[in-house]
């Protein structure tokens, strides 16, 4: 009898570990009260940025998709409009990040990536709401609030990611 064993690679472990971290952040954030529905810091995106910086786009896509999928199952929002919004925002951010990662490095750091991803996120979500969830409603009327939130949280998440990457780079260089 042959036993079927799946040997997870180091990369699998890494992706699972980072996805778990992102899911934890997503769940923590879901417990926070928000002034406007849909406006939240998106702390899990910090994990996406870190994974992108350290392990590349493929790993970032994996971690983000696992987070959206598993996070929605844990929150009970799988396949609801909220899940679709989460998914479309995640896709748009990753699409923008896949291009923005090639911006010249010394001038464009984590803050740039975080801001661009945040704006792609709300852009996609407003589009989905406007075209599919609430067609006919002038969703752009709410866009200033979402854009301001994207700016603030894009900046803060970018700074956090910058701090964290600097820490790990320092650790790598000293050891």
């Amino acid at each position, binding site marked *: 009898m042959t036993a079927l064993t799946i040997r997870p690679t180091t990369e699998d472990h890494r992706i699972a570990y980072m996805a778990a971290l992102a899911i934890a952040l997503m769940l923590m954030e879901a417990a926070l009260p928000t002034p406007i529905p849909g406006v939240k810091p998106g702390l899990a995106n910090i994990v996406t940025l870190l994974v992108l910086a350290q392990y590349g786009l493929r790993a970032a896509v994996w971690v983000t998709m696992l987070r959206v999928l598993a996070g929605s199952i844990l929150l009970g929002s799988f396949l609801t409009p909220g899940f679709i919004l989460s998914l479309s925002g995640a896709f748009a951010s990753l699409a923008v990040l896949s291009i923005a990662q090639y911006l010249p490095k*010394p001038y464009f750091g984590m803050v740039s990536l975080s801001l661009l991803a945040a*704006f792609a996120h709300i852009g996609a979500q407003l589009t989905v709401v406007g075209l599919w969830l609430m067609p006919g409603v*002038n969703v752009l009327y709410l866009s*200033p609030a979402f*854009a301001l939130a994207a700016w603030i949280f894009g900046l803060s998440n970018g700074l956090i990611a910058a701090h964290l990457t600097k820490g790990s780079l320092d650790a790598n260089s000293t050891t």
Partner: protein
Amino acid sequence: MWDKLRDNIKFIQLGDGLILLISLGLVVSLTAHYWLAPAGEKIIIKRGGELFLTASLMHPFTVAIPGPLGLTQVEVYHQRARVVSDPSPRQLCVHQGWISRAGEVAICLPNQVSIEIAGTTRHYDSLNY
């Protein structure tokens, strides 16, 4: 505290600053366009893409517009306008509520009725008043 701030600013590179400024510009222009737009002066009601009625928002009135599904009731009150009732199944234009700023629109697609708020257009106003 200033140390902390300086600590953070050193993470903002030249390109980051540029993107911060551009995106802040986007936020400001969206706010200016959608929230600081001047209050509307007139209501334009269309039926099947054709002009049905143009009226000032100054005086309250109610009007019923016949469409293919039935009557769409529109109310103007306190320089705002809304669709009071509509025969469309999803009631999107009714749920939209009051609209008052120039450029805002409520569309009852199934009944082919739309109401739009227009700002001051001087050459028309000189004729109307």
